[in-house]
């Protein structure tokens, strides 16, 4: 099985799960810190964008959650977005997308 098939499988598995299992409070705090500080290096501390696109609820409203989750995990080739899979699990990435789309991580 090549990586493309694996990615498709990963995506369909990800979409099969409805909502992400919420991380523990300590892990949620660590993820929020990472989002604002490390992702914020390109997307802005307030997520309003920079070299990276804005991550505000409004900016992400019409984007499919699955593809946003895949972007966090595996980056976006051709852009400056790197893969964050070494630092977040698939569930955590999905949880981050949910929080972002609902504007809960302002």
């Amino acid at each position, binding site marked *: 099985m090549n990586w493309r098939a694996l990615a498709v499988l990963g995506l369909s598995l990800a979409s099969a799960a409805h909502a992400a299992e919420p991380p523990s409070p300590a892990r949620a705090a660590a993820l929020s810190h990472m989002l604002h*500080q*490390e992702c*914020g*290096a*390109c997307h*802005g*501390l*307030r997520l*309003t*964008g*920079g*070299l990276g696109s804005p991550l505000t609820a409004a900016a992400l409203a019409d984007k499919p959650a699955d593809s946003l989750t895949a972007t966090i995990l595996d*980056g976006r080739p051709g852009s*400056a977005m*790197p*893969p964050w899979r070494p*630092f977040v699990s698939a569930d955590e990435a999905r949880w981050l997308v949910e929080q972002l789309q609902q504007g809960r991580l302002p």
Partner: protein
Amino acid sequence: MIARLLSALSAALCLLLAACASPPLRGTGDLGVVIERARGSVQIVEQSARRSLGRVDGLGDLSHASVVFSRDGRYAYVFGRDGGLSQVDVLSQRLVKRVMQAGNSIGGAISSDGRIVAAQNYQPGGVKLFDADTLELLAEVSTGGSKVVGLADLPGNRFAFSLFEAGEIWLIDASQPRAPQVTRYPNIGRQPYDGLASQDGRHYLAGLYGEDGLALLDTWQPEQGVRRILNGYGRGRAALPVYKMPHLRGWSLAGDYAFLPAIGHHQVLIADRRSWQEVARVPVHGQPVFVMAEPGGRRVWVNFAFPHNDTVQVIDVPSRQIVATLKPGRAILHMEFTARGDAVWLSSRDDNRLTVIDTATLNTIAELDAEQPSGIFFTWRAQRMGM
């Protein structure tokens, strides 16, 4: 008796008032400004005493911020992420003026005559020129929405910058600040992420994210156009992820060499400054962010992108060996040398601390509290091209 008492009283009162009205005279050459990114403030610091003198609040979103100084070193111009341009009086520790000049900004520069402050913007792109005294808008150079990176001042009231999406270098001549003239250099390479001007103002270099190499413009021979240097430095090796873009400024060039961060490779590239040929690659701890030569040029200090941002390495230039690996704190975002390099100040974002290191002994000689500090900017920058 009463008359004498009154006169003594009034003399005392005068002294008191005088003391209130005029603080002791001092220069700004020993001062600096530290960005507190989350709080939206700056601290004014004193280099020799290694202490904070005060704080100026109300500067907006400083999640990415940079600073240039007025020629007299009195005013700091702070460029914030939210497009705010703030003029801070370093002596009186006051916010003098603030304009919102764009939706999303990345930095700026000041002209060679000190009269024009230029701001570079991500949203809506472009460069805006302001009067350094009044912050009145003088002119706007549109880049058609392309994000502007690597704005640097050049002699003769010129500026150079690069366009991230468009892959171009532009020179603007602002000798008539209300009618700047633009010269475009297209096809310089994919996704320039930052740029620098050499301290003599002759060379402008743009680092490329989208390919392995840098674009070089010799502004003494602009008709020769832009050429590629260090082309294909990563050839044959898979690129590693880059979790923070490196930053380029004039500190990358010292003595006979240029010291540059490789993109996607944990290496510092060393090039000869005459031929611009590669001389060596030094393997380092992570993705380099700031590769800064000490003012004397003998050693080069390097900090790193996440997840290696707790480490700073020091490279000895003649031997090209790493002579020290330091762990000065969590999330080291920036380093700033004193003008003559006796000390270096480091900001540790996640430890809410500034650490001052004696460059001779590499010992920590002071620590100062700061709220999520990022950039540290000393006033010597006022006197240096390309800073």
